[in-house]
C-alpha cells in the first residue's frame, strides 16, 4: 500500500508553470472552474504512476510526451511530475520526466534511474505465483493501477456499461482490479492462438472442407477395398502379403530379365551356328565339287589301272619274251633297257596315282565325317534353338503371370497409397483440432477460474457496494444490487421487487454515477492507498450529492491510515458544503480530515493555488 503525500507538476497539460499540492489529509478536494487545470493534476498523478495518460493517448500504452507538455509553457521549461510517497514507514520520492523515472529513497542524494517495471511493482498489485516464475505483464499492472486508483469518465463507463460491445474492455479492466487480469489475458492469448490456427487453415470452412475431403477419401478407400474383396482378394492377407509379394515380383522380374538375356545369347549362338553351318555347307559344296572333279579322274585312273594290268600282262609277256630273248640278250638289250625304263616310269606314275587316290579317299572320308558332324551339329543347334524358344515361351508365360501379379500388387500398392493419404489428412486435421481444442479448453479453464474468483470477490464486494449504493440513492428505487451470472459476473444489475434492471439500459446518468462511485469506493477500501477521482459529483442530484459527502466523511473517519482520496470538482457549493460537513470532524491520524485547494488562472496566464485551507476540528 503506497500513499501519495505530495505532488508537484510542472509544464504539464494545462499547467504551464509549477503547482505543488499536499495530499496528506485523508481527503483533498481540488476546486477550480473548468479549464483551470484540475484534471491536469489527476493526469499528472496517472503519468507518474503508470507512465501514460489513457484519455490523452487514446488507450495506447504510452502517452506522447509532446501531447502532455503544456502548449503555453516557455520552450526552455522542462516538463516534470514529482511525487512524495509513503510505503509503510518508508518514504520515497519519484520524479517523472519524459524519458525516465528517477527514484529517490530516503537519505539518497542521487536518484536511481528506474524502469517502468520497477515503478509498476511499486504501485501495482502483489504479484501472484512468484514461486512458479510467472510474471504479470506490465500492461496488466498498468491497467490495474489505472482502473483501481483513478475514477475518470472512462472508468465510470467501464464500471456501469454492461453492453456486449464493451464487454471485453470491461472484462480486462475489471478483471484487472479484481486481480485476475492475467488469467483473462492468458485466456485471450489461448483463444487468439486457436483463432489463428483455424484462420490459418482457411477458417472453420477450410477445416470443414478438409474433413469433407477426408470423408470422401475414406469412402473411396472403402469402395476400392470392397471391390478388391469382391474379386477374391483378402484385404487382410493383402496387407500382410504386400511386402513379400513385392519382393517376389522383384525377383521374378530379375529372373525374367536373366531369361531374356539367356534367350538372347542363345539366339545369338544359334545365329552363329547357322552361320557356321552355312560356311560348312559352302565348304561341303566345294568338297563335293572337288570330289566330282576327282570322280572325273576315275576313268583315267581306271584306264591307268587297265594300262597297268595290261602292262603287267605285257611285262609277263615281255618277261617271257625276255627269257626268250635273254638268249638274244645282245639284240634285245637295248630294247630291254628301254622297256625297263618305260616300266619304271609307268610304275612310278601308277604309284603316284594310288597315293593320290588314297589321299582323296581319305579326304572324302574326312569330308563325309565333317559333313556328318556338321549335320549333327546343325541338328543339335536346331534342338537347342527349339529348346531356347520353348524356354523363352515359358518365360513369356511367366512374364504374363508376373504381370498379372504385378497388376494385383499395383492395386494393393494403390490401397496402401490411399491409406497413407487418408492417414496423413486425418493426422493433420486431428493435430490442428487437438491443439485448437486444448487451447480453447485452457482458455475456458482460465476464464472459468477467473470468473469464479471474480464472482466470489464480487459477492463479497457487493456486501459493501450494495449498501453504499442504496445510501447514495436517496430516492429508493432499487432493493439491491447483484453481480452477473457466473459466466459473466461483471454483468451486474439491480433488483426492485421482482424486476431486474441493467445499469446501461435502465439507470439514469446519476444512478450510473452512483453505482460507479459505490463500486470504486467499496473497492478502494479493500485496496488501500491513494485514490484519484476526477469530477465524481458531476451528474448527482442534491440529495445524492449530500449522501456522497456523508459517504466520503465516513470513509475518512474509518480510514485510519489506510486510504486517502484526491478529488476534483468545479462546484463551489459542493466545496462549501463539504467544508461544513467536515467542520467538526476531528483530526484523523493527526491530520486535518479535509484539505481544499482552490486553483485560479488558465494555461495561458498560468495556474496557481489561489487558496488552501483545511476543514475539521483543530
Amino acid at each position, binding site marked *: 500500500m503506497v500513499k501519495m503525500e505530495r505532488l508537484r507538476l510542472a509544464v504539464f497539460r494545462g499547467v504551464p508553470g509549477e503547482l505543488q499540492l499536499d495530499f496528506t489529509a485523508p481527503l483533498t478536494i481540488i476546486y477550480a472552474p473548468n479549464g483551470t487545470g484540475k484534471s491536469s493534476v489527476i493526469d499528472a498523478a496517472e503519468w507518474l504512476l503508470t507512465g501514460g495518460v489513457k484519455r490523452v493517448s487514446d488507450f495506447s500504452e504510452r502517452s506522447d510526451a509532446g501531447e502532455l507538455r503544456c502548449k503555453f509553457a516557455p520552450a526552455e521549461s522542462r516538463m516534470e511530475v514529482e511525487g512524495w510517497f509513503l510505503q509503510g514507514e518508508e518514504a520515497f520520492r519519484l520524479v517523472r520526466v519524459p524519458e525516465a523515472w528517477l527514484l529517490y529513497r530516503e537519505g539518497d542524494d542521487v536518484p536511481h534511474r528506474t524502469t517502468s517495471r520497477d515503478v509498476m511493482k511499486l504501485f501495482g498489485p502483489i504479484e501472484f505465483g512468484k514461486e512458479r516464475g510467472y510474471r504479470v505483464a506490465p500492461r496488466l499492472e498498468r491497467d490495474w493501477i489505472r482502473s483501481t486508483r483513478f475514477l475518470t469518465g472512462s472508468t465510470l463507463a467501464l464500471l456501469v456499461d454492461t453492453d456486449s460491445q464493451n464487454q471485453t474492455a470491461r472484462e480486462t479492466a475489471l478483471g484487472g482490479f479484481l486481480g485476475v487480469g492475467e488469467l483473462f489475458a492468458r485466456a485471450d492469448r*489461448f483463444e487468439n*492462438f486457436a483463432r*489463428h490456427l483455424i484462420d490459418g487453415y482457411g477458417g472453420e470452412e477450410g477445416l470443414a472442407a478438409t474433413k469433407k475431403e477426408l470423408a470422401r477419401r475414406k469412402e473411396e478407400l472403402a469402395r476400392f477395398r470392397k471391390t478388391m474383396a469382391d474379386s477374391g482378394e483378402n484385404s487382410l492377407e493383402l496387407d500382410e502379403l504386400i511386402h513379400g509379394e513385392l519382393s517376389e515380383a522383384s525377383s521374378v522380374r530379375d529372373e525374367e530379365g536373366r531369361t531374356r538375356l539367356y534367350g538372347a545369347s542363345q539366339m545369338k549362338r544359334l545365329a552363329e551356328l547357322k552361320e557356321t553351318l552355312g560356311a560348312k555347307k559352302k565348304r561341303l559344296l566345294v568338297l563335293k565339287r572337288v570330289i566330282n572333279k576327282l570322280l572325273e579322274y576315275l576313268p583315267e585312273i581306271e584306264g591307268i589301272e587297265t594300262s597297268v594290268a595290261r602292262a603287267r600282262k605285257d611285262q609277263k609277256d615281255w618277261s617271257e619274251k625276255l627269257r626268250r630273248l635273254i638268249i638274244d640278250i645282245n639284240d634285245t638289250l637295248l630294247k630291254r633297257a628301254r622297256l625297263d625304263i618305260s616300266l619304271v616310269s609307268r610304275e612310278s606314275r601308277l604309284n603316284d596315282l594310288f597315293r593320290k587316290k588314297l589321299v582323296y579317299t581319305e579326304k572324302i572320308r574326312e569330308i563325309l565325317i565333317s559333313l556328318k558332324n556338321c549335320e549333327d551339329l546343325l541338328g543339335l543347334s536346331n534342338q537347342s534353338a527349339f529348346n531356347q524358344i520353348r524356354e523363352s515361351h515359358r518365360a513369356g508365360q511367366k512374364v504374363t503371370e508376373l504381370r498379372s501379379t504385378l497388376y494385383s500388387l499395383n492395386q494393393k500398392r494403390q490401397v496402401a497409397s490411399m491409406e497413407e493419404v487418408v492417414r496423413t489428412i486425418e493426422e493433420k486435421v486431428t493435430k490442428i483440432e487437438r491443439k485448437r481444442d*486444448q487451447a480453447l479448453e485452457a482458455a475456458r479453464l482460465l476464464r472459468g477460474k477467473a470468473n469464479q474468483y471474480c464472482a466470489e470477490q464480487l459477492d463479497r464486494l457487493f456486501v459493501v457496494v450494495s449498501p453504499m449504493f442504496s*445510501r447514495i440513492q436517496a430516492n*429508493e428505487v432499487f432493493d439491491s444490487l447483484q453481480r452477473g451470472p457466473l459466466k459473466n459476473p461483471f454483468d451486474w444489475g439491480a433488483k426492485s421487487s421482482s424486476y431486474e434492471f441493467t445499469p446501461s439500459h435502465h439507470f439514469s446518468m446519476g444512478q450510473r454515477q452512483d453505482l460507479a462511485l459505490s463500486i470504486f469506493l467499496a473497492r478502494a477500501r479493500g485496496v488501500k492507498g491513494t485514490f484519484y477521482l476526477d469530477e465524481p459529483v458531476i451528474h448527482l442530484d442534491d440529495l445524492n450529492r449530500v449522501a456522497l459527502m456523508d459517504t466520503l466523511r465516513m470513509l475518512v473517519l474509518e480510514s485510519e491510515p489506510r486510504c486517502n482520496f484526491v478529488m476534483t470538482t468545479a462546484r463551489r457549493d459542493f466545496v462549501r458544503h463539504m467544508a*461544513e*460537513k467536515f*467542520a467538526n470532524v476531528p483530526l484523523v491520524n493527526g491530520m486535518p480530515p479535509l484539505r481544499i485547494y482552490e486553483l485560479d488562472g488558465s494555461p495561458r496566464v498560468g495556474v496557481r493555488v489561489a487558496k488552501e485551507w483545511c476543514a475539521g476540528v483543530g
Partner: protein
Amino acid sequence: MQSVYELMDLIDVYAGAVGLKRIPPRGVDGGEGDQSIRWEAPYAQLMLWMIQSTGKASVLAEVEKAQEILDTLLVSAEKSLSGVVDGYLLLLLWNEPDEDLHSLIRSLEMDTNVCRKNFIWQREGDTPEARWERLWRTTVIGLPESPPLGRMVDMPELKESYKEIWKEIRRSGSANAARKVLKECKRW
C-alpha cells in the same frame, strides 16, 4: 425487544467505526423518553426512534416529534461547537410497512428538513446485517469491511499439453505459435 438489542449492537459497531458513541437517553424530562437511543460525535448525531404506532397519521406525528427532539439536541450541540452538526433519524418500525405507509416513508426519506430520516424494519436474513439491511441507508455510519483486493490470483495448474502451447505462445506470440503448428502440418 430482543431484535432491538441486536439492532443496537449493530449500530454500535458501525457507528463506532466512525466515532459515533452511544449515549444513555436523557429520560422523559430531557425529551427523549425511552423511545429513543442516540449515538453522537462532534460532527453528527444519530437517533434511533422506535415508532409505536402503525397508522399513517400517527406515524407521521411520531416522526415529527422525534425530529423536533433531535433538532433541539442538534441546535444545542451546534451552540457548544462552532459549526454544523448533522442529524440522522433512524425510525424503527416493528413490522414491515404496508403499501400505504410506503409512500409516506418515501416522502419522509426524501425530506431534508432538519435531518436525514431513514425507516428501518427487520427482514428475513441469516445475519444481523442482512436482517437489518435498511440500516445501511443511514449515510453517517460505517460499512462492512471490503474484501482485500490488493493482490492477484494464483495461476491455476494447467495440464502439460496446455503448458506446451503456452510456452510457445509466450515465446513467439499467439499468431506465430499457431503458424508453427500449421507449418508442421503442411510438412506431412
